[in-house]
């Protein structure tokens, strides 16, 4: 679209309050608006889907104060003066997949994340669905890598010891137009490369899942769709990278950079200054902020919140795979897509997410409205699942650009940065694939100034923490005889033993918090949500790590659980 046309449109809609300008192949939108929805509207009007000429949002938003980035309270010099070949900023799936790919080379690698654990942002707050890409058309990065990534999942998950299952995605429709659905399937399969795209008759749909509501006319099936635990996968990737020589530093916030002549010389953190040869920007919803620090801001991220509900495992039987119902609701408010119903890898159901634009990048609050939107939509697919089955809910924030495609490229104004930005859905699916190409790009950049050799001792295999409840009884018996702690059940809902919790605390990336243990081996993920086991988990962390119980944290550096001992509490229980 021409700049002139964009400005005409903006003028019409906003009466001179915003305008666009083009400079260095970047569209800057400037002005002042007091509604965030208007900010999104203006930038969207200036943008073109999948274009490489990005919109940068320079509109002054006066409607509310945009909160400052949350930073860890820690301040030390642990990393000061450190020289590395590659510094990865961001410990989500994007950062760790690239880190692991890079660990196939003999390089000094460091990944930093500002949170107390990996997968605290988008990568720990999504649907865990390995998509097939049927909602994408050809000719963009999302489409390219969702197909490649999906195909890699069996191998990657078996190497990393992470459960993965292709449960299939199927859905029915209330519409009458059989031809339209058939045509859609034909086009997807033969022109968009979605090889598993299939038309489903109502009969087959109900054969696959008899619990779907009656009345669905026909639908579609994609049998390559899978489910995975996204935070377990992120942690596993990180651990495998560590096993192969990479370093990960948590509670480490990149606050600024020193850039000279198009080259980043120094990266400043709360734990000292780091000197990298190449920087990888995998900062999710903060990718724009990192690009700005690097003086290479050529895109903007507009955060989009989504809330999911998780229901009791007892409801798992109602939906076997991934499903949703397609129907046309003329009254549906904008931006309230209601996602789907997903049978998770741990046999709960997950419902959602919705989609709400927000100026808050890390507000993970949930709201009842979101839950209602999702349930109102999903009960059209399967009305057996009730809000009273919910055991928990959570919010994640997506990180799209206004062009709604991934950005996977070397810096434009800065030579030694690689941006992996705009990694919205299907980012989890795509990451294993784009990480390979981005690691190659990074190695090529390094090769401009140094020699890079292959890490011949690279080991792709990560041994998982054993999951005793899923073992045959004889094997479980043998494991317990070797280590009696595997016989002490701490979490009664998920049947997790003390031994598994200690294993989690002795893994390559120890995160000795209640949430850290929960993400790795699941105590507290069940229907009682830690009601019984949390005090015991605190005790095991305290004993294993040699720290007082009063110092055990829930998660982040300020998330303390207690204020020390009670009056009589010095006499330790």
């Amino acid at each position: 679209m021409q700049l002139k046309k964009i400005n005409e449109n903006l003028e019409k809609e906003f009466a001179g309050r915003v305008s666009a300008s083009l400079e260095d192949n970047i569209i800057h939108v400037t002005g002042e608006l007091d509604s965030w929805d208007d900010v999104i509207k203006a930038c969207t009007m200036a943008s073109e889907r999948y274009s490489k000429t990005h919109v940068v949002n320079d509109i002054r938003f006066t409607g509310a104060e945009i909160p400052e980035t949350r930073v860890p309270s820690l301040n030390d010099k642990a990393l000061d003066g450190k020289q590395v070949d590659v510094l990865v900023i961001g410990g989500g799936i994007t950062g760790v997949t690239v880190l692991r790919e890079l660990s196939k080379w003999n390089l000094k690698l460091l990944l930093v994340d500002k949170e107390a654990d990996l997968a605290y942002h988008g990568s720990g707050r999504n649907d865990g669905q390995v998509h097939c890409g049927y909602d994408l058309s050809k000719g963009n990065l999302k489409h390219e890598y969702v197909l490649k990534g999906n195909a890699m999942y069996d191998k990657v998950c078996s190497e990393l010891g992470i459960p993965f299952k292709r449960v299939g995605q199927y859905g029915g429709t209330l519409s009458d137009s059989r031809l339209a659905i058939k045509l859609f399937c034909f086009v997807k399969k033969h022109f968009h490369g979605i090889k598993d795209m299939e038309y489903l008759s109502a009969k087959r749909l109900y054969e696959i899942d008899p619990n779907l509501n009656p009345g669905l006319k026909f639908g579609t099936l994609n049998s390559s769709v899978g489910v995975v635990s996204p935070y377990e996968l992120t942690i596993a990737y990180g651990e495998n990278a560590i096993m192969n020589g990479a370093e990960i530093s948590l509670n480490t916030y990149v606050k600024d950079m020193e850039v000279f002549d198009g080259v980043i010389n120094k990266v400043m953190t709360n734990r000292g200054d780091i000197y990298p040869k190449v920087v990888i920007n995998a900062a999710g919803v903060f990718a724009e902020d990192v690009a700005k620090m690097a003086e290479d801001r050529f895109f903007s991220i507009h955060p989009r919140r989504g809330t999911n509900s998780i229901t009791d495992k007892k409801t798992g039987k109602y939906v076997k795979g991934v499903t949703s119902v397609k129907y046309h609701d003329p009254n549906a408010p904008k931006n309230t897509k209601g996602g789907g119903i997903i049978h998770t890898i741990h046999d709960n159901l997950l419902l959602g997410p919705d989609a709400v634009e927000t100026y808050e990048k890390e507000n993970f609050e949930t709201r009842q409205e979101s839950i209602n939107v999702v349930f109102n939509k999903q009960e059209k697919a399967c009305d057996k699942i009730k809000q009273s089955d919910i055991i928990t809910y959570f919010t994640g924030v997506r990180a799209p650009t206004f062009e709604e495609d991934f950005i996977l490229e070397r810096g434009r104004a800065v030579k030694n940065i690689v941006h992996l930005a705009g990694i919205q859905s299907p980012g989890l699916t795509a990451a294993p694939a784009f990480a390979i190409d981005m690691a190659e790009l990074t190695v090529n950049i390094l090769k401009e100034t140094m020699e890079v050799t292959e890490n011949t001792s690279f080991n792709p295999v990560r041994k998982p923490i054993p999951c005793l409840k899923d073992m045959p009884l004889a094997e479980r018996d043998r494991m317990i005889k070797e280590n009696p702690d595997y016989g002490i059940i701490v979490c009664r809902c998920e049947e997790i033993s003390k031994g598994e919790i200690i294993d989690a605390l002795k893994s390559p990336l120890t995160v000795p918090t209640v949430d850290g243990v929960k993400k790795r081996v699941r105590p507290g993920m069940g229907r009682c949500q830690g009601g019984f086991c949390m005090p015991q988990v605190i005790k095991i962390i305290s004993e294993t790590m040699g720290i007082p119980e009063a110092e055990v944290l829930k998660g982040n550096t300020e998330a303390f659980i207690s204020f020390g001992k009670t009056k009589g509490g010095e006499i330790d229980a």
Partner: protein
Amino acid sequence: MLKYDVTVIGGGPSGLSAALSADRANAKTLLIEREASLGGILKQCIHDGFGLLRFGEKLSGPEYVYRDIKAVYETDIDVSLLTFVTKTEKTDDGFILHLVNRDGVTSVFTKTIVLCTGCRERTAKQVKIHGTRPAGVFTAGQAQNLVNLHGLMVTKKCVILGSGDIGLIMARRLTLEGAEVMGVYEIKSEPSGLSRNIAQCLNDFDIPLHLSTTVKRVYGHDRLEAVEVAKVDEKMNIIPGTEEIIPCDALILSVGLIPENEIAEDLGVTLDRFTKGPHTDNSFMTDVEGIFAAGNCLHVNDLVDYVSENGALAGKAAAEYVKKERKYAKITIDRTLGYIVPQEIDLTTDLSKVEMYFRSFSTVKNAVLEIKIDGNPFMEKKYMVVRPPEMEKLVLDLSSAGLTENSVISFGIVKKEGDING
């Protein structure tokens, strides 16, 4: 494989009583407990008030339960601690239980099972509390455990949601430990704890009780910083404009207990939709022959004395269990009752002393419990007042009631006629 007549799952007060009475009836008995010591939830209930009915004394939880623990160790009952029932199988003449403990995985055969697995607490998400997810949101039992068993001070300034007994007791406990309890908030228009606890735990310490008020959201990223409370209307919907933000560092939830019946469900036991515990007959046998239930997994009790009594009845019935043809009369309640236990009468048993437990659906002064058999009045019982928080116990003689297989015994509460003040 070891063989037992009775296996009791859960070593709280109901399980201890069940095991003791099964042993007294000469059954070879196994008592399984998941934790490192017997006593169940009473281990952490260090306040007094236990045992008034049973012992005529005011004991603390540990004192109360110690009497039964001591008695158990004086018998031949096999006690298996730190042991978890991982899988169950039904056989022709009983059950095989697969147990996990420090020694490995073992299997035992048992003719009968008494489920005494207690209950769990409802969580913040189950009562639709939204907002962030900081540290500092505790269930009351969890806070009680951390304070009483771990000696950890969980708050300096807190709000308690729910006026259930555990919440009330924690309000007092935390005050004694030096915390400021900003108030107890209850969504219903009347408190859900025992009157004596309102008096002794709140009034005596000047802790305000806010009725028809709930917590809507929590604030704070890492540690809780505030909660938002709001008034609700009769339908328990939030009244817009009544929201108020209360700065505090913890939210303690006492919003209900849910019977733990995962083992029962695995074995195909039907749960009652009112109690959320197994559907049982007057011997506390479930609809799966040979499986009995007692205590808080059967229905949530407010007094441990009843739990012990109920456990003893179930344990004895399990010991005396023989497979036979049975005939049942049905029990129904109308909407004036919250629930009733049992839900069926086994006509082949002694019907001269049938124990029943019920709760009213709402508070009724000058109430009359009407019991009808096939629509015909059978008996009436008068109460000064019935309240949902206070469970009522009944002992009925149904031996001469002329019950037959298709009989329906119905229960309802009406207000005594002619009363205009209530």
